[in-house]
């Protein structure tokens, strides 16, 4: 559960950038990736290079991002279908059973473009997570004027994610420890029962969470909470941040132009 924080301890240029700048630039990068038209390979390639340079600066292992970008895999499977339904010149014709599937050139371009956009987006998001501790992200959201309530909810959630996550893990371990079988017997009871037990565990977790909410509220009252949450502001946006943002926006605009006027 803690492994996702492994690269946040670095101290590269990217790690030190003001979190809100990183958040905005990440969003712009994803937006830019979505805006690159199908088949604008130069633009995709430039975006990828930009990404690789950033990963290099962050000194994050390139392979690290790979495993987690697999989260897009299931959706890639569903996107396979565009290979066959996009109108265009037929490339390959398949005959699986009674069907006829025609893979078109436009389909291939479309599929590859979807994949490219998605990989770019997920990798930049991984980079953001890898170079910015979550508490700093929360500060960034506050500065970006996200509703304070929502940011506070996220902060509490982050704190108790681990507490409750561990609790859930321990519950499951306890169940595992008693999931015994005798030699020569099937065991495991039935599906309904197993589901009900898992549900009981969820109910248990819920009640404990409620009570914990009560206790935390008491702890906050004890330290002067009266409805507002104040925090110090540990981050200032410096000239370096502005320069980085300006350079980033410029590059992204350039990529968009190149994507649309290939001759330029």
């Amino acid at each position, binding site marked *: 559960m803690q492994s996702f924080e492994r690269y946040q301890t670095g101290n590269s240029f990217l790690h030190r950038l003001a979190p809100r700048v990183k958040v905005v630039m990440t969003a712009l990068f994803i937006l830019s990736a979505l805006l690159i038209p199908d088949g604008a390979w130069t633009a995709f390639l430039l975006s990828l290079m930009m990404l690789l340079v950033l990963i290099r600066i962050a000194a994050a292992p390139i392979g690290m991002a790979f495993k987690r970008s697999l989260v897009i895999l299931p959706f890639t499977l569903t996107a396979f279908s565009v290979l066959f339904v996009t109108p265009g010149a037929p490339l390959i014709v398949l005959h699986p059973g009674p069907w006829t599937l025609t893979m078109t050139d436009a389909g291939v371009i479309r599929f590859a473009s979807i994949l490219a956009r998605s990989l770019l987006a997920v990798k930049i998001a991984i980079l953001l997570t890898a170079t910015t501790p979550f508490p700093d992200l929360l500060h960034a959201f506050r500065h970006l004027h996200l509703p304070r309530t929502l940011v506070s909810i996220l902060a509490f959630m982050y704190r108790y994610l681990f507490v409750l996550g561990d609790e859930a893990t321990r519950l499951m371990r306890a169940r595992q420890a008693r999931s015994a079988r005798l030699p020569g017997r099937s065991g495991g009871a039935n599906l309904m029962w197993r589901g009900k037990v898992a549900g009981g565990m969820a109910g248990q977790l819920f009640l404990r969470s409620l009570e914990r909410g009560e206790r935390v509220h008491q702890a906050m009252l004890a*330290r002067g*909470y009266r409805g507002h949450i104040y925090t110090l502001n540990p981050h200032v946006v410096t000239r370096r941040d502005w320069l980085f943002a300006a350079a980033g926006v410029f590059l992204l605009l350039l990529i968009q132009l190149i994507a649309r006027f290939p001759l330029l």
Partner: protein
Amino acid sequence: MPVTHPQDHTARPTSSRTAAGPALAISNLTFAYPDGREALRAVSFTVQPGEKVALVGPNGAGKSTLLLHFNGILQGQGEMRVMGKSVMKANLPEIRAQVGMVFQNPDDQLFSPTVYEDVAFGPLHMGLDEPEVRRRVAEALALVGMSDYAERLSYHLSMGEKKRIAIATALSMRPHILALDEPSAGLDPRARRRLIGLLQELPQTQIIATHDMLLVRELCSRMVLMDEGRIIADGPAHRLFEDQALLEAHGLERPAC
């Protein structure tokens, strides 16, 4: 011992010194939970400034409930004064600055993502300005020997470390009184020893609810024994420890020697 400057006057409470008077005076306090359970019945006692009082009694005796009254989180019927101030709605913000609460489970107390934010929470909500807040945080962390931990995430700490941070969150408000609920539970012997050392050296008035009789013997001169919401006995700890019959009648034991 990682405690720094134990005698340093910065550890002393600074706000509104009261001349003499008791730190805490409770008379005839009665409290029932909303479900009707009577958790406190006519509790009266007084704590002088600087005293270290142990609050002992079996599970469910009402110790935690009593502690929650000290800064008005729960409000029962009866008279209660903290540093001479009556505990009532108008005084609460002031009283909460004077009573530092340390809850039994540090996971309930450390609710901010980072250690720094958690220790700063109290001072910030007292309305102090930023440099002062930073000073207080640094001071409180130094007192518990955790200065290097400011930027750590609370989640990644061991139980013993969390416990010390929890105490720092109370110290950063520079309270006159520390109310600690089972501070030694779940600590390994070394961490427990450090905690006892720290509490011995802190100058605050301390009221400690605990099952740890050895801690009581080492730390507290006075012991208040509760059961079923009542105060059963109140006196010098070494005296009460001799009354085997009394202790056993209330689910307690003399420390092994």
